[in-house]
């Protein structure tokens, strides 16, 4: 079980790392942010699996913190990008 969870953690890490190619290629800012977002979620999954494999319960707390905060930079990006376009007045609208 421990080996399986470690291997699964490694697999997920590898997958989200491949997704990082989007940071290199872009083309838009949104694509880059999405790659960071995927890495955040993948990082949470890896932490949970490592925690279960090693039996360190506190790793779930680290995952909780990441789950709360990992989306913040994407939110900051959307806010700042909206504010940078003057003709929209920075207001967001629902679709």
């Amino acid at each position: 079980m421990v080996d399986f969870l470690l291997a699964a953690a490694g697999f997920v890490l590898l997958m989200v790392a491949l997704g990082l190619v989007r940071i290199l290629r872009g083309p838009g800012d949104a694509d880059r942010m999405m790659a960071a977002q995927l890495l955040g979620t993948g990082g949470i999954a890896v932490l949970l699996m490592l925690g279960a494999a090693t039996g360190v319960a506190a790793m779930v707390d680290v995952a909780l913190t990441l789950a709360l905060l990992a989306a913040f930079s994407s939110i900051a990006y959307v806010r700042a990008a909206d504010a940078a376009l003057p003709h929209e007045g920075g207001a967001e609208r629902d679709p």
Partner: protein
Amino acid sequence: MTGVLFNVALAVLVLGLAVWTIIAREAFAAVVGFIAYGLLLTLVWVQLQGIDVALTEAAIGGGLTGVLLIGAAARLRGIEAAPGAERPRNSLYWMAGAVSAAVTAVLVICVLALPDPAPTLAHEVALNIVDTGVANPITAVLLAFRPMDTLLEAIVLVFALIGVWSLAPDDSWGGRPGPVQQSDPNGILAYAARILPPLGIVIGIYIFWTGADYPGGKFQGATILAAMWLLLMMAGLSEAPPISRGWLRVGLVAGPLVFIAIGFIGVLTAGDFFGYPQGLAKPLIVAIELALMPSLTLVLGLLMVGAPQRVAKL
């Protein structure tokens, strides 16, 4: 074996992202690379058995620093400071490369030549931790064995905030910090800002409270609370208070002042600055943490918002 492979993959990824952060052509792409780098560092700390450090890195490196840098990068978008004249000369590249390579080489030699068995204070900590009443060795070090570091850190944070505020234009001094946030109260961001903070506050206080016995503590908890406050401000549901408010200034310095006062109580009762009287160590440590928590939350939140920019209505 799986563990070693995992670590090697992690190290390669961290290095790759660092290279990207340094060489990327656009500042924005470099910042996103740095955010990913911060997230991966959290995993590195876990692998180095520093769960407390991982928590701090997740909260600060993965959260707040990213928000700060993304905000700046998006604001400076399109204003890449790359007029041809400013590109460094080739000789500078070679010199910088040589110096950096030399630093790396020296550090590699140092890492490989570290003494074996490694010197450690873990035994002393294990021996003396019983007197403090807390079970998390990191908290014991931060608040009982080396409280001066923690005190100065709290003061440095307040000084940093004063430094940020002092960048305000003259007519904005005393006003509300940060740009005007306007957004739709029924928008998606406002929705997230109503759902997340209640959960976030519970988690922040949990991380703070569990810090006495398990990984966690006031810095991590305060960072989470500050992030929740920041979310409310970004969604336009709340505004930063004007920096001239009396309660705000009292709140900012209350934590460090209580910390110093408890240090002086130590002089009177135990004959030493920060000496805790026998049996009272745990209550005093909890008192310091409770006093520091709100101040740290205020300082961290306001550091994120930046200097006052709007003309103050005094």
